[in-house]
């Protein structure tokens, strides 16, 4: 029977929640799966991931894998992929950087950013969003080996099912010349007390209308709700919010239980990144703003009075 290799995504030695969505993909595909953990220090993540019903947890540990560079990771992923038919990576900036290089190494077709999978008699077919989420394409990969990246917002994080998958070491494959021509300099990580956009139950997003008061207005609300903060492209381009907060077709794609769109008009590209949210609240003084067409609850008010009032009301 065909088997899936899930490539874990790590952050500071622990599995990111995006990995758990990729595990859900494997379970939905109805095929046995193993998990591959790469890094300079893998034991914590390997232990965590041993509780999800994988056949095996494979670890490739080496100082050269400290930073997730595709040139260094792809050879080891491709080598570990022997004996697997489907290689599933997270559709994050990490996975999207890595997956095509793995596919090219394996001569495999690559289905990016998938939002659904079906298995009919062992043949997998995938669904993926296109045209800014206005059309879902049904695709099949025609090569014997397949690479997919899994959209976190469309697959619920797997729950630990107990048990302990055996943990096995795999060899770190030799790298090609490309690896010697790329050098990791540093990661300028956003310092934030808030949860990651991909992992938050509640997201408070703001648009250009907030201007320099972006943080001043949104932080109290986000803090109160334990929410992640997001932003529209316009707010990021204008410098009111850092680029990594951008929600949308070409930024982060999110689907929290509750999404606040505050002072966001609702351009197609923004909607593509948050339409899957369970409950959407829009606060905007323009009653014609397109965001109201997708909002479950719309409040036509000036955000500078509505948001502080919302904080007060929620504290009651």
């Amino acid at each position, binding site marked *: 029977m065909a088997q899936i290799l899930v490539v874990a995504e790590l952050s500071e030695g622990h599995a990111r929640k995006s990995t758990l969505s990729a595990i859900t993909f494997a379970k939905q595909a109805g095929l046995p799966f193993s998990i591959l953990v790469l890094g300079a220090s893998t034991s914590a993540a390997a232990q965590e991931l041993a509780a999800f019903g994988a056949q095996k947890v494979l670890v490739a540990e080496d100082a050269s894998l400290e930073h997730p560079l595709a040139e260094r990771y792809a050879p080891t992923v491709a080598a570990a992929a022997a004996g697997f038919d489907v290689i599933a990576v997270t559709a*994050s900036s990490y996975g999207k950087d890595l997956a095509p290089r793995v596919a090219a190494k394996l001569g495999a077709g690559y289905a990016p950013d998938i939002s659904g999978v079906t298995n009919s008699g062992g043949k997998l077919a995938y669904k993926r969003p296109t045209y800014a989420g206005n059309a879902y394409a049904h695709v099949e990969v025609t090569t014997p080996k397949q690479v997919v990246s899994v959209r976190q917002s469309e697959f619920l994080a797997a729950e630990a099912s107990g048990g302990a998958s055996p943990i096995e070491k795999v060899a770190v494959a030799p790298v090609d010349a490309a690896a010697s021509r790329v*050098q990791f300099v540093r990661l300028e990580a956003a310092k934030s007390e808030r949860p990651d956009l991909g992992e938050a139950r509640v997201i408070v997003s703001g648009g250009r209308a907030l201007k320099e008061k972006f943080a001043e207005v949104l932080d109290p609300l986000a803090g109160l709700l334990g929410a992640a903060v997001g932003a529209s492209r316009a707010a990021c*381009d204008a410098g009111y919010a850092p680029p990594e907060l951008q929600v949308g077709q070409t930024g982060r794609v999110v689907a929290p239980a509750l999404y606040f769109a505050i002072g966001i008009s609702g351009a197609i590209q923004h909607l593509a990144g948050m339409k899957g949210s369970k409950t959407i*609240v829009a606060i905007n003084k323009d009653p014609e703003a397109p965001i109201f067409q997708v909002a479950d609850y719309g409040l036509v008010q000036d955000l500078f009075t509505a948001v502080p009032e*919302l904080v007060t009301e929620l504290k009651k």
Partner: protein
Amino acid sequence: MKILVPLKRVSDPDNANKIKISGGKVETTGLEWKPNPFDEYAVETALRLTENGANPKARLGEVLVVSFGPKEVETTLRAALATGADRAIRVDATDDQLDGDLVARALKALVEKEKPDLVLLGKQQVEGDSNQVGQLLAEYLGWPQATFAGSIKSENDTALEVHREVDGGSMVLKVTLPAVVTVDLRIVAPQSVSSKHSPAHKYADGVRFAALMAIMAAKKKPLVEVKLAELASDTALKIKVTGYEAPPARKAGVKVKTVAELVQKLKTEARVI
């Protein structure tokens, strides 16, 4: 520096909600063709990297643009020539003959022929959003890659320091040329691209527009056609699209009149707080 920039036209991304799906196919009738926005950013980046601060009329290097498609995509190529690219190639093909992998393999053959120092691409085209051609090409060439570049600093045109926009912030890489770089939105901010021969002035935010004179002049710039088969012997596709479906519609929401009403609904109706 010689830079190759692959371009694609897309149906107007600002009206993507007007596409129709019928019989499992996407119809974009009535939507204008536009250059893929990220590809326009790649052209702008290439022009900035080859700018000559000392003599704005004589750029340092060459920008070669290439597009895969029928005759009509020459409009997209001419537009890039009008903003300053030097030369264009159209690889004759129709969209249904192509997938990202075949484009990457054909580009590899083109790179081996043209020998650019750098291939600059948009990080994704906004119809399929596949985000793959740059990475595939880099692997096929055995070159390093820097994806999702938000800024680029050229070090003597032999290496680039690239700030990549990643989920957790910004990852800084140094790649030695030749390399593949894919660009993100912020690459066209006023000070995102620099080299030792950059002009002293700051750029306007966004991509440059072509002057009428330049549009006329672009008609005389070289644009050649190449057959797909000349670049790729194996034209089998690795991805088959079997159909399209419309996304589920969201049910219409309600307008609330006050903040208190909103909070009450979130608590008792949606039960999310």
